[in-house]
């Protein structure tokens, strides 16, 4: 059922996101062409005005995609689960966990799509900017062979591990961002009145709470007898440079997992036990 939820969630959110992505890519092509046009002009004149407008649209398009990815995360959760559509969604034969996971996975997909759109827009602008885009395959081959050699020296398993760890970190970071919004809305919408205001207050409250919690944990660890000695006695010299990067990345992932769990549990509980549909 999770797959079906994801499919319909992609349809629902894609209606908003895809036009923004396509328009921003279109403006990136236009921006590249206008730069090329500007370089060819003898007398700039009116063309500088067109150029200015196109560049503005290009930047605005990319900003709009980034903003919309957050707006869609918030709006889909609010409208689809906490608004009138909640009557349909929460009477489907699926669990609350599947609802939350489908929203998280689709949000991650749109965050990734936003990142890729920004990258692609830059590439498109550069490609359209140059008169003749020729690929020097000898150079490309050389770059890849050098890259292969570097990977071999560093250890292919390490590289695969980093990629996986970075992917999990990206998902974790996106998950924490989304869950902060979800948790705030789940709290805010459990009230009978002023749901939006209560959600905003809950969001601020969660932010303050986590800042205090993080500081408290650090202070607590510093004051526990033995922790400092343990850290001093840690013999990191036996861990390779590649290995220590893994330790840092895995430690960060663990932090994200704990952070996400602390947000996930109340969100799930509120949607399961304190759902307050309009």
């Amino acid at each position, binding site marked *: 059922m999770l797959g*079906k939820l994801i499919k319909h969630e992609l349809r629902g959110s894609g209606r908003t996101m895809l036009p923004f992505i396509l328009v921003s890519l279109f403006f990136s092509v236009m921006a590249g062409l206008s730069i090329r046009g500007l370089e060819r002009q003898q007398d700039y004149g009116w063309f500088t005005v067109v150029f200015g407008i196109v560049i503005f649209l290009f930047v605005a398009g990319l900003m709009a995609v980034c903003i919309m990815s957050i707006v869609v995360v918030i709006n889909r959760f609010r409208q689809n689960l906490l608004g009138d559509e909640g009557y349909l969604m929460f009477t*489907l*034969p*699926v669990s609350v966990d599947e609802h939350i996971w489908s929203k998280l996975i689709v949000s991650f997909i749109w965050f990734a799509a936003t990142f890729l759109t920004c990258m692609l827009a830059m590439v498109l602008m550069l490609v359209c900017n140059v008169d003749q885009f020729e690929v020097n395959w000898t150079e490309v081959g050389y770059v890849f062979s050098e890259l292969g050699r570097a990977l071999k020296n560093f250890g292919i398993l390490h590289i695969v591990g980093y990629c996986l760890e970075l992917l999990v970190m990206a998902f974790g970071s996106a998950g924490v961002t989304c869950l902060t919004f979800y948790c705030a809305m789940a709290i805010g919408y459990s009230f009978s009145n002023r749901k939006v205001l209560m959600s905003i207050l809950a969001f601020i409250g969660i932010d303050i709470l986590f800042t205090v919690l993080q500081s408290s944990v650090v202070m607590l660890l510093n004051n526990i007898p033995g922790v400092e000695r343990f850290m001093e006695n840690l013999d990191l010299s036996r861990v390779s440079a590649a290995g220590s990067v893994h330790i840092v990345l895995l430690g960060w992932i663990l932090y994200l997992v704990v952070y996400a769990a602390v947000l996930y549990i109340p969100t799930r509980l509120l949607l399961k036990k304190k759902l307050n549909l309009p």
Partner: protein
Amino acid sequence: MTATFECRGLSKHFGATQALDGVNISIAPGRVVGLLGPNGSGKTTLIKLANGLLSPSEGEILICGSRPGPETKAVVSYLPDKTCMPQWMNAQQLMDFFQDFYGDFDRQRAEEMLGRLGLDQKQKLSQMSKGTKEKVQLIMVMSRKAKLYLLDEPIGGVDPATRDYILDTIIRNYDPEAVVIISTHLISDVEKVLDEVLFINQGKVTLQASVDDIRQQYGMSVDEYFREVFKC
């Protein structure tokens, strides 16, 4: 035989407000039941509890012997008292949605009903009138071969012709082995389709009886008896 719908000492309160108070109900399969009561009597709360949209404060509610959860939701077809279908969808997308999630959804039946309505299946819900949206929503709900149909105010706020259409759609399409619970306060319109009635007032079930028994015992229609009981 396991009751399709059962409440045992079911209570629900919202803060200091008691919405349901020690409700005991048992409904066997194959009955069309009217859940009748004045506004604010607890009808919608009871239906929301049966759908798992609310959790009981005390007691329990059982659908085919199980507490509300994904398994019971697979056999319950619910019509809320408001339009809940995504407005950007058209009828075809709605049918895809229902077909994906409900194994008991009969697409052919839905298409036939939509065809009789003369509806363009590509038209978005947001472009439809309120009455048409309600009809489309009802068609989706009644195109399932569910064990329990929970219809919350299906004829509230619609014109008499639409009321007839809605009641006709319900009666033509429900599975005879299923239970249909219709919540309403427009009793005269639904009386003709009911087997049984539940009177609910201030969170308490005050009567569970068959329509024939009420007519025989009190010598009046359910509507007249309701007016008598709930006279202000």
